[in-house]
């Protein structure tokens, strides 16, 4: 199957005076049509920057982003705007991502400018159908964002992303600002939309529980690099990389008396402006050997479709 999205050696460097921050470093992955891929990692690991590069909100320093056979990085601004028809995004903070002065109707219909061939009647029909899909009653169309609850705001954000039937939607922490009991509803909605509309998702989240329930494959990032990738069950249940293992064990499970062994990582991620030359994780890794600090790591396949970037266990 031809992947819908192929990221090739994506690198994004930010400069601050003499300091260089490699937010995303040599990242490659593919997403097949209709699939949900989770992109997980802790803050400032580069997961949001990756999404912003795909969406054309940030310009990659190097690397290519192939979407449906088209290299997005080579497009002019105008051609990119035409491609936005197929790529949309749901943002993290529903308070900041909805314009406070616009009504729900105006917010949701904003992307319709990308489908210019249609008339007013078609737009109205799309709007009604979309609002019904996301479960927002029509009476809310004339409300302003501050009159909505958190879950409703995020539903409006989702409605805006799907109203033009995109092929791909980047979900940037879609549930992190919501109450626990609302999260599952929003995830269920996303799942249902995918089944109905055949959308492909990139789910970016630090909430691994959400990723586990919604995605089929998962990518784990640490300081701009991919450390592990594979099917969800494989990565969550049999993680290879010491970082993934610690990450999984650090998340509390709501079942008392389970007695999981928690690996508490020492220290904090190193200064992203000053990443060690070898494995980025070596300073916090309990199993790190001397060469981990020197030798750069490459991804290798440990199981079909399960990739790990770790010196341990490699020849």
């Amino acid at each position, binding site marked *: 199957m031809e992947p819908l999205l192929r990221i090739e050696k994506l690198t994004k460097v930010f400069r601050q005076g003499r300091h260089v921050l490699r937010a995303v470093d040599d990242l490659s992955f593919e997403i097949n049509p209709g699939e949900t891929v989770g992109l997980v990692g802790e803050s400032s690991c580069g997961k949001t920057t990756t999404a912003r590069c795909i969406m054309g909100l940030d310009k990659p320093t190097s690397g290519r982003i192939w979407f449906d056979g088209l290299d997005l990085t080579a497009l002019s601004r105008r051609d990119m705007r035409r491609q936005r028809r197929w790529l949309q995004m749901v943002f993290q903070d529903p308070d900041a*991502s909805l314009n406070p*002065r616009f009504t729900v109707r105006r917010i949701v219909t904003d992307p319709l400018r990308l489908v210019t061939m249609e008339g007013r009647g078609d737009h109205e029909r799309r709007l009604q159908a979309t609002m019904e899909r996301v479960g927002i009653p029509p009476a809310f169309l004339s409300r302003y964002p501050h009159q909505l609850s958190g879950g409703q705001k995020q539903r409006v954000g989702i409605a805006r992303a799907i109203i033009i039937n995109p092929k791909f939607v980047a979900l940037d922490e879609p549930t992190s600002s919501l109450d626990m009991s609302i999260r599952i509803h929003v995830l269920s909605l996303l799942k249902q939309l995918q089944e109905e509309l055949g959308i492909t998702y990139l789910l970016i989240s630090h909430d691994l529980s959400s990723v586990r329930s919604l995605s089929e494959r998962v990518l784990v990032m640490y300081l701009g690099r991919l450390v592990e990738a594979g099917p969800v069950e494989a990565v969550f249940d049999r993680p290879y990389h010491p970082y993934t293992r610690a990450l999984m064990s650090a998340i509390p499970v709501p079942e008392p008396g389970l007695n999981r062994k928690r690996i508490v990582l020492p220290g904090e991620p190193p200064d992203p402006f000053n990443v060690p030359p070898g494995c980025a994780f070596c300073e916090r890794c309990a199993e790190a050997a001397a060469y981990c600090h020197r030798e750069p790591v490459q991804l290798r396949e440990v199981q079909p479709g399960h990739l790990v970037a770790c010196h341990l266990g490699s020849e």
Partner: protein
Amino acid sequence: MEAVGEVEGLLSRAPESRLSRSVLLLRRHPQLGAGLAILVALVTTLALAQVLVPYDPLRGDSSTVLEPPSQAHPLGTDSFGRDILSRIAQGAWLDLPIAFTTVAIAITLGLLIGALAGYTGGLVDMVVMRATDILMAFPSFILAMVMVAVLGNSVPTVVIAIAVSFVPDFIRLARGEVLSERELEYVDAARCAGNSEWRIMYIQLLPNCLTPVLVHGTLCLAWAILDVAGLAFLGIGITPPTPEWGVLVSEGVRHTISGDWWVSLFPGATILLAALGFNLVGDSLRDITAREERGQ
């Protein structure tokens, strides 16, 4: 206090009527009510005066020179026998429109230039900001004086001169607001929705930057009235015999010494009340919006 904010957030979601909101606002901010009351009273008095005291503000009458306040001339007459109340009322038709036009021009220019500087950044931003620095280095009143002196005495020059002296403030305000707003996610969302950069800046961003600018505009109305009258008092810009508040004050000054105090006192008091009214309103609006921003 986030805990408090959370509960209040739940409450504020309930749709509330505009009327009950305004009543509440006035009760919490008596200053705002006082300012509005002064302005309304002033404008209605002056409007009524034109109907009830129908003297020609420009034609003198040698039989009523320098009469103190009386039934026929509630605020007295000046050295040409003209009714002072009529002249003040007529002056309102000049001073208030000038103030509003000046501020409107300053706001428009300030918003357009400030938003452009803040949104594009880089060289444009630097040039604009240094230019405003230079303008701000002059006291605004002196700047306006020089400009009128160069451009000549007329109402449009006064408007332009005062507007230009106000513009730097608005540029800075608008730029600052745009700088903080453009980092918010709705700007990225607008980009994803296919808005051009131009649309994002002026249609999505700018309306969210308006509040502090409009509040500052209200304060500027007060200063504009003072500036127009001040220039006229010094004999620059609007000159006699045009009935303008500053002109009226300056005409009366020499009579005050000889005991005919009403000639300049009443126009002066009018200027004071108008400026005070706008100042009170502007000040309390600033308080209210600052408080809203802190989420209270």
